[in-house]
Protein backbone atom coordinates (compact mmCIF):
# COMPACT_ATOMS: atom_id res chain seq x y z
CA UNK A 1 0.00 0.00 0.00
CA UNK A 2 1.09 3.52 -0.68
CA UNK A 3 3.30 4.98 1.97
CA UNK A 4 5.43 8.06 2.10
CA UNK A 5 8.43 9.35 3.92
CA UNK A 6 8.21 13.11 4.17
CA UNK A 7 10.27 15.91 5.63
CA UNK A 8 9.32 17.27 9.01
CA UNK A 9 6.93 20.18 8.91
CA UNK A 10 5.34 19.24 5.62
CA UNK A 11 1.61 19.83 5.40
CA UNK A 12 1.20 17.54 2.45
CA UNK A 13 3.34 15.66 -0.01
CA UNK A 14 2.35 14.09 -3.27
CA UNK A 15 4.05 12.20 -6.06
CA UNK A 16 2.37 12.34 -9.45
CA UNK A 17 3.43 9.97 -12.22
CA UNK A 18 2.84 10.33 -15.93
CA UNK A 19 4.09 7.47 -18.05
CA UNK A 20 5.30 8.25 -21.55
CA UNK A 21 5.51 5.04 -23.54
CA UNK A 22 8.19 4.50 -26.13
CA UNK A 23 5.58 4.73 -28.89
CA UNK A 24 4.46 8.14 -27.65
CA UNK A 25 1.35 7.13 -25.73
CA UNK A 26 0.89 9.08 -22.50
CA UNK A 27 -0.70 7.49 -19.41
CA UNK A 28 -1.49 9.84 -16.56
CA UNK A 29 -1.43 7.76 -13.37
CA UNK A 30 -2.29 10.79 -11.33
CA UNK A 31 -1.14 11.05 -7.73
CA UNK A 32 0.44 7.68 -6.95
CA UNK A 33 1.65 8.49 -3.43
CA UNK A 34 0.11 10.99 -1.06
CA UNK A 35 0.48 12.24 2.48
CA UNK A 36 -1.44 14.89 4.34
CA UNK A 37 -1.00 15.67 7.99
CA UNK A 38 -4.78 15.55 8.40
CA UNK A 39 -5.68 11.85 8.74
CA UNK A 40 -9.18 12.43 7.36
CA UNK A 41 -7.74 13.79 4.13
CA UNK A 42 -5.37 10.80 3.92
CA UNK A 43 -8.36 8.50 4.40
CA UNK A 44 -10.31 10.31 1.69
CA UNK A 45 -7.39 9.87 -0.70
CA UNK A 46 -7.30 6.12 -0.03
CA UNK A 47 -11.05 5.87 -0.67
CA UNK A 48 -10.74 7.78 -3.93
CA UNK A 49 -7.91 5.49 -5.09
CA UNK A 50 -9.90 2.39 -4.17
CA UNK A 51 -12.98 3.60 -6.05
CA UNK A 52 -10.83 4.46 -9.04
CA UNK A 53 -9.39 0.95 -9.11
CA UNK A 54 -12.88 -0.58 -8.97
CA UNK A 55 -14.29 1.63 -11.72
CA UNK A 56 -12.16 1.19 -14.83
CA UNK A 57 -13.86 4.03 -16.69
CA UNK A 58 -12.73 6.42 -13.98
CA UNK A 59 -9.09 5.51 -14.45
CA UNK A 60 -7.09 8.22 -16.15
Amino acid at each position, binding site marked *: *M*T*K*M*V*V*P*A*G*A*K*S*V*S*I*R*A*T*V*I*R*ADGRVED*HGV*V*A*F*YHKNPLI*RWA*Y*RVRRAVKRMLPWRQS
Partner: protein
Amino acid sequence: MATVVTTAGRAVAVNRLRGSGTEPVYVGWGTGAGTATTTATGLFTERAADLSATTGNRVTGTSSAVSGAVTGDTWRLVATYTAGGSGTVTNAGAFDALTISAGNLFVYGDFTGIGLASNDAIAFTIDVVFG
Protein backbone atom coordinates in the same frame (compact mmCIF):
# COMPACT_ATOMS: atom_id res chain seq x y z
CA MET B 1 -1.31 4.69 4.57
CA ALA B 2 1.00 5.77 7.30
CA THR B 3 3.72 8.34 7.29
CA VAL B 4 7.11 8.63 8.89
CA VAL B 5 9.68 11.40 8.95
CA THR B 6 13.27 10.51 8.19
CA THR B 7 16.06 11.96 10.21
CA ALA B 8 17.92 12.45 6.92
CA GLY B 9 15.09 14.58 5.55
CA ARG B 10 15.19 16.79 8.64
CA ALA B 11 18.92 17.27 8.26
CA VAL B 12 18.49 18.28 4.61
CA ALA B 13 15.88 20.88 5.54
CA VAL B 14 17.96 22.31 8.36
CA ASN B 15 21.06 22.48 6.19
CA ARG B 16 19.21 24.25 3.42
CA LEU B 17 17.73 26.78 5.86
CA ARG B 18 21.27 27.48 7.02
CA GLY B 19 22.32 28.06 3.42
CA SER B 20 24.42 24.94 3.16
CA GLY B 21 24.01 21.46 1.77
CA THR B 22 22.63 20.50 -1.61
CA GLU B 23 19.07 20.84 -2.81
CA PRO B 24 17.48 17.38 -3.15
CA VAL B 25 16.77 17.58 -6.88
CA TYR B 26 17.99 14.10 -7.80
CA VAL B 27 15.18 11.64 -8.36
CA GLY B 28 15.72 7.93 -7.93
CA TRP B 29 13.44 4.97 -8.51
CA GLY B 30 13.32 1.48 -7.12
CA THR B 31 11.81 -1.89 -7.89
CA GLY B 32 11.64 -3.48 -4.45
CA ALA B 33 8.85 -3.81 -1.95
CA GLY B 34 8.96 -2.67 1.63
CA THR B 35 7.54 -0.52 4.36
CA ALA B 36 8.88 2.94 4.99
CA THR B 37 10.51 3.59 8.35
CA THR B 38 11.78 6.68 10.10
CA THR B 39 15.34 5.49 9.64
CA ALA B 40 15.00 5.01 5.89
CA THR B 41 18.07 6.19 4.02
CA GLY B 42 17.32 4.82 0.58
CA LEU B 43 14.70 3.41 -1.72
CA PHE B 44 13.61 -0.18 -1.90
CA THR B 45 16.06 -1.76 -4.34
CA GLU B 46 17.05 1.44 -6.06
CA ARG B 47 17.90 0.87 -9.70
CA ALA B 48 19.61 2.83 -12.43
CA ALA B 49 17.85 3.84 -15.62
CA ASP B 50 18.17 0.33 -17.04
CA LEU B 51 16.08 -0.96 -14.11
CA SER B 52 18.62 -3.67 -13.38
CA ALA B 53 21.90 -2.06 -12.30
CA THR B 54 22.18 -0.92 -8.70
CA THR B 55 24.94 1.57 -9.49
CA GLY B 56 24.99 4.66 -11.67
CA ASN B 57 23.30 8.01 -11.56
CA ARG B 58 19.89 9.28 -10.67
CA VAL B 59 18.11 11.78 -12.88
CA THR B 60 18.34 15.50 -12.16
CA GLY B 61 15.03 17.25 -11.78
CA THR B 62 14.03 20.88 -11.87
CA SER B 63 12.69 22.48 -8.72
CA SER B 64 10.46 25.48 -8.36
CA ALA B 65 8.35 27.27 -5.79
CA VAL B 66 4.66 27.21 -6.58
CA SER B 67 1.68 28.60 -4.77
CA GLY B 68 -0.88 26.52 -2.95
CA ALA B 69 -3.03 27.92 -0.18
CA VAL B 70 -0.28 30.45 0.48
CA THR B 71 1.98 32.09 -2.09
CA GLY B 72 5.13 30.07 -2.60
CA ASP B 73 4.33 27.44 0.03
CA THR B 74 5.02 24.45 -2.22
CA TRP B 75 8.36 23.02 -3.26
CA ARG B 76 7.91 21.23 -6.60
CA LEU B 77 10.37 18.89 -8.22
CA VAL B 78 9.80 17.68 -11.78
CA ALA B 79 11.94 14.98 -13.33
CA THR B 80 11.55 12.54 -16.20
CA TYR B 81 13.24 9.17 -15.83
CA THR B 82 13.58 7.11 -19.03
CA ALA B 83 13.98 3.36 -18.70
CA GLY B 84 16.85 1.71 -20.51
CA GLY B 85 15.41 -1.74 -19.84
CA SER B 86 12.23 -3.32 -18.60
CA GLY B 87 10.95 -3.63 -15.05
CA THR B 88 8.34 -2.50 -12.55
CA VAL B 89 8.89 0.71 -10.61
CA THR B 90 7.41 0.54 -7.12
CA ASN B 91 8.88 3.54 -5.34
CA ALA B 92 10.60 6.84 -5.99
CA GLY B 93 12.14 9.65 -4.04
CA ALA B 94 14.30 12.75 -4.05
CA PHE B 95 17.90 12.78 -2.88
CA ASP B 96 20.58 15.43 -2.47
CA ALA B 97 23.18 13.48 -4.47
CA LEU B 98 23.33 12.37 -8.07
CA THR B 99 25.02 9.03 -7.51
CA ILE B 100 22.93 6.02 -6.53
CA SER B 101 23.49 4.95 -2.92
CA ALA B 102 24.92 8.38 -2.06
CA GLY B 103 23.28 11.35 -0.39
CA ASN B 104 20.29 11.81 1.85
CA LEU B 105 16.73 10.77 1.15
CA PHE B 106 14.52 13.86 1.44
CA VAL B 107 11.09 12.64 0.38
CA TYR B 108 9.96 9.26 -0.73
CA GLY B 109 6.87 7.27 -1.57
CA ASP B 110 5.93 3.80 -2.65
CA PHE B 111 3.02 2.97 -4.90
CA THR B 112 1.36 0.34 -7.00
CA GLY B 113 3.97 -0.90 -9.45
CA ILE B 114 4.23 0.74 -12.85
CA GLY B 115 5.46 -1.63 -15.52
CA LEU B 116 7.95 -0.17 -17.97
CA ALA B 117 9.56 -1.42 -21.15
CA SER B 118 12.76 -0.08 -22.63
CA ASN B 119 12.48 3.59 -23.63
CA ASP B 120 9.31 4.11 -21.62
CA ALA B 121 9.58 7.02 -19.21
CA ILE B 122 7.94 8.31 -16.07
CA ALA B 123 7.54 12.03 -15.52
CA PHE B 124 7.50 12.51 -11.75
CA THR B 125 6.10 15.60 -10.09
CA ILE B 126 6.87 15.73 -6.39
CA ASP B 127 5.09 18.42 -4.39
CA VAL B 128 5.96 19.22 -0.78
CA VAL B 129 3.57 21.73 0.79
CA PHE B 130 4.63 23.48 3.99
CA GLY B 131 2.04 24.86 6.28
